[in-house]
Every structure is written in C-alpha cells, then in structure tokens.
C-alpha cells in the first residue's frame, strides 16, 4: 500500500559517505563501476558491429572489431527478406503484428486496470478487499497453469488465434499489476477530493473520468511504460494465442534465428535482434526515471 510512496522518493540525493579526495578506495569503486559497465555494454556493442559486417568479415571471428567495410545490407535483409520457414518477408511482418497487438492491449489493460483500481479504492463495495487480495496473489502464478484451459475456452468462443484473443489475454494477465498500480495511487489521494465530487452530485463514471483520471496522469505514464515494454517483450502468450498469421516480433525473431537451415547469416540475425529490441529500448531511454518508477511500482505487490 504505502510501498510506492516509500520507493518513489527514489533517486534524490546520494546518501553514501562524502568522499575526501581520490583515495585508493575511490579508485577501486570507479574501476568496479567501469569494468561492470563495459560488461553490460559489450553485448549491445557486439550486436551492433556484427549487424554492420558482411559475412566474410564475420567468418574471421573478431567479434569486437569494428566493421572494415560497414554495410547496411543485413539490416535491409532483416527487415524485408529474412526467412521464417518458407516465407521470406523479413521481420517487418512481426513488427506490424506486434504493433497491432500492442496498441489495443495497452489501451484495454490500462482502461480495465484503472477502472478496477478506482472502484476498489473509493467505493465501499462489499468484498472489495478480498477481490484485491486475491488478484495480488494470483499475479504470481506461472502462466503454464492457465494456458491449456484458456486455449480450450478461446477455441470454444472462436477467438483462438486472433488479434482479439491475444489482446484479451494481455488484458487478463495485465489486470493484477494495473489494478495494483492504480489502486495504490488512488488510495494515496485525499479522500476529501472524492467526497467533494460526490457532494457536487457527480456519479461513478463522472468522478472517474473528470476528476480521478486527470489526477492520475503520472500513473498513466508509468502504466503505459510498463505495458508497452511488457507486451512488446512477451513471447509465450503471443506464441500460443496470437495465431500463425499474427505472430509478434519476438516469436518471429526466434524463428528467424533458431530455425534457419544451412549457414546462418549472423549479421542478419543480429540486425533483426536489434530491430526487435528497438521499441523497448526507445521507451527506456526516452522515459528515463519514469522507467525505474514503473518497475518499482509494478514490483511491489501488496
């Protein structure tokens, strides 16, 4: 409940001991940070240089070397001609599918989550506490438990292997986190706000739409960051529920890289990998501290 409040003052001032001058200890700290930073950056760097090399250079093996004859051809091929099985339309197909899945899923999951969070925090509905507690617990359960029955139910309803099906799935599995996020945020708002709106005669949806949702802009941003990265990065749900025609980018990427016959085009693979990572990376670097706030808020259950 108060977890978000205690975590979000997050990055204010460093609390560690005030440094004197450049002591051996400080050199050690910097050495540790720099070496670790290089270790963290190395994969990104290797991906990038590999994707810009022609295959002849890759066969030489120097993975850290800069490309001698940089080429964008692997990128073009990855985007529009890489093969998954018999079809060679590139990863752009997966990109389009992921966008088609992403947009409605983000909107639907945030809409349902924010409304549920609002109803749970201001309206004294009987059993609300129980519902909330149960939602928090089931958030931990691995998907494998639900997958088979859900496939059967969806097949029965005729929405298996469709965009609608996968959007519904993302909405269902996004519900606990989204509800938690908004419930905690609304619970931190002053109750007087709600009471004043009620005295003015505003009803349930009116208060939600004109008072609470505008107040919840920071949480909306956090929720969008969380859902965009989470849904874009999803693999297992897209694999099972989206259907062959709508496979998201992550699934297509894995098919391109791991089911190639004959010699693998590593440069094309790496270009496709970067392309798949581009959306969450862009969200991450554009959102800065909001991203940390998002994972902290989404992380703390209960």
């Amino acid at each position: 409940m108060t977890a978000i409040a205690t975590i979000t003052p997050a990055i204010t001032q460093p609390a560690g001991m005030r440094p004197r001058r450049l002591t051996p200890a400080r050199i050690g700290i910097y050495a540790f940070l720099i070496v670790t930073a290089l270790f963290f950056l190395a994969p990104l760097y290797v991906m990038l240089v590999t994707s810009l090399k022609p295959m002849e250079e890759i066969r030489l093996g120097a993975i850290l070397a800069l490309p001698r004859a940089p080429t964008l051809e692997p990128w073009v091929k990855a985007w529009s001609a890489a093969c998954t099985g018999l079809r060679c339309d590139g990863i752009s197909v997966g990109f389009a599918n992921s966008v088609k899945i992403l947009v409605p899923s983000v909107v639907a999951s945030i809409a349902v989550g924010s409304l549920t969070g609002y109803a749970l925090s201001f309206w004294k509905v009987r059993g609300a506490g129980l519902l909330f507690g149960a939602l928090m617990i089931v958030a931990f359960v691995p998907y494998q438990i639900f997958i088979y029955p859900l496939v059967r139910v969806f097949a029965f309803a005729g929405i298996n292997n469709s965009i609608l099906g996968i959007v519904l799935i993302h909405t269902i599995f996004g519900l606990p986190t989204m509800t938690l996020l908004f419930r905690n945020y609304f619970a931190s708002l002053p109750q007087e706000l709600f009471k004043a709106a009620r005295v003015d005669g505003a009803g349930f949806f009116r208060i939600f739409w004109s008072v609470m949702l505008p107040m919840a802009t920071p949480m909306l941003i956090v929720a969008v960051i969380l859902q965009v990265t989470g849904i874009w990065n999803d693999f297992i749900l897209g694999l099972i529920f989206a259907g062959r025609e709508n496979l998201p980018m992550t699934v297509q990427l894995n098919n391109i890289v791991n089911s190639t016959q004959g010699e693998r085009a590593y440069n094309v693979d790496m270009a496709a990998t970067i392309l798949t990572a581009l959306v969450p990376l862009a969200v991450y670097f554009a959102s800065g501290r909001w991203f940390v706030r998002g994972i902290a808020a989404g992380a703390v259950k209960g």
Partner: protein
Amino acid sequence: MPLVRHRTASRLAAGLALSPALLVLVVVYLGCTAWTVWISLTSSRMLPNSTFVGLRQYASLMGNERWQVSVANLAVFGSLFLIASLALGFLLAVAIDQRVRAENTLRSIFLYPYSMSFIVTGLVWQWLLNPSFGIEKMVRDFGFPSFRFDWIVRQDMVIYTLVFAAVWHAAGLVMAIMLAGLRGIDEDIWKATRIDGLPPWRVYLSIVIPMLGASFATAAVLLATSVVRLYDLSVAMTNGGPGVASEVPAKFVMDHLFERGNLGLATAAATSMLITVAAVVAPWLVWQSRRTRRAHA
C-alpha cells in the same frame, strides 16, 4: 428522491466496474487452475478424458528423466541467479551511491538490459558464447590458442551460461531497487556512524544491509517468480539443449502440452510449478501483511 436514486445508480456502477475483475478472477485464475489440477488427476493424453487415476501422473512425472533434469536445472539456475543478481545489484547500488560522477549514465547502462526481452537477451548471449565465433575464438586469436570457453555446447556447463545471461538481464533491476532503498536511509545514520568512527564496510554490513531488508525481500521475490517462469531464455539461447541439458519446468509443460500431446503429464508438471510458487510466495505475503498491519497500528 432523485439523490438517493443517483446514489444507488453509482453503487451499481461501482459493482459493475468490478465485474470484469471478478470474472477474470473466478473464470480464468480460479477456474482454469482447477481445470488444470483436475486434468492432472486423469489419464489424459492427446485429448482430455475424465478417467480418474489419482496421483499416477505425478508418479510418472517424478520418474521422468527430463523432468528431473528440468527441476535440477531450476534449482541450480535459481539459486545462482538469485545470489549473483542480488550481490551484483547491491554492490552496484552501493558503488553508485558514493557520489560518483556520471551517475545517470551509469544507472542507464546497468538497467538497459532489463528493458529488453529474454528472447533478445538469449540470442545475444548465444552469439557471444558461440565457440567458433564468440569469446572463445576472440581469446584464442589474441594469443591463447588453447583457451576454452565452450560452456554453451557442453551438457555439464550449459545451465551456467543461462545464469550468466539472466544476471546480465536482471542485475540492473536489483540495483534500482537497492538504490531507492539506500536513498531512503536517513542522513543522520551516516552522521552518527561517522562520529562513532565506524569503518564503511562495517556500516554497510551491520547497519545498512539489515535496514534494506524490505528492498532485498522485494528484489528476491521478484527474481524468484521470474525463475519459476523461466522459459523464453532457454528457448532462445539453447532450445533446451544440448540434449536436454538446459531444459526447465516451464518448457517441459509447454512441450508436453503442444508438441508431445501428453496433457496429464503436462498439467501435473504445471501443478507442481504452482505448488513451488506457493511455497515461495506464501511466507513472503504473510510477512508483508504483518508488516503493513504493524505499520498501520
């Protein structure tokens, strides 16, 4: 009385707004779990049937070699991943907390892997650890022709490469959580320890770490749930191989559901996963709710 009617309408609306959540909880979360547990008690193969066989599926699960490997892998992976991520994340947070330069840049570098998918993570590390092109080849060309780092193709070592990739992916998350915890520690505590002349390592060991208990618990639970869910990384990096050396329980369930057509065994495995998660999460939830209750009292 219009006001009263208005109020009733609003109450009704509130109940209505909660109905999707209630429906999801009952139908999906509870209903599907019950269905899965039920199938695991039947003799279902390709198609579900309702021949009750008790715990026979669980017995054959325990005797299944691939399941045994999967569970052992999860234990090894889980414990190493937890320890390494928590340790590295904590050390990074402490180091960054020493008023270092370029703090924002460093934080961004440590956290960016977490924004990417396990598929991307797995494919990158598959490439880096590839013996004929990756790190092994690089060090050999550097003048150490006998250098060996072929863990990813060795049955006895492959699981450690998964740990490697997963720590790279998640250590930044631990750092972010720990840093938030460190920044929440009162400035007066630092002043007091300075006056007492305690060496910094003592302060961290006996004062700071105990104070960060909640941060450690949060990070640990978060990492632990991702351990049980581990699937994408194994699929992308090694596809469970070489042989079955990097199989994990979640993959066991998926493969037996959709490729091998053995529903009974798959659902028994899924139920076992559920029990494991419950054993991890339940104590933490109890602890959490006690803590909040105490905070409110």
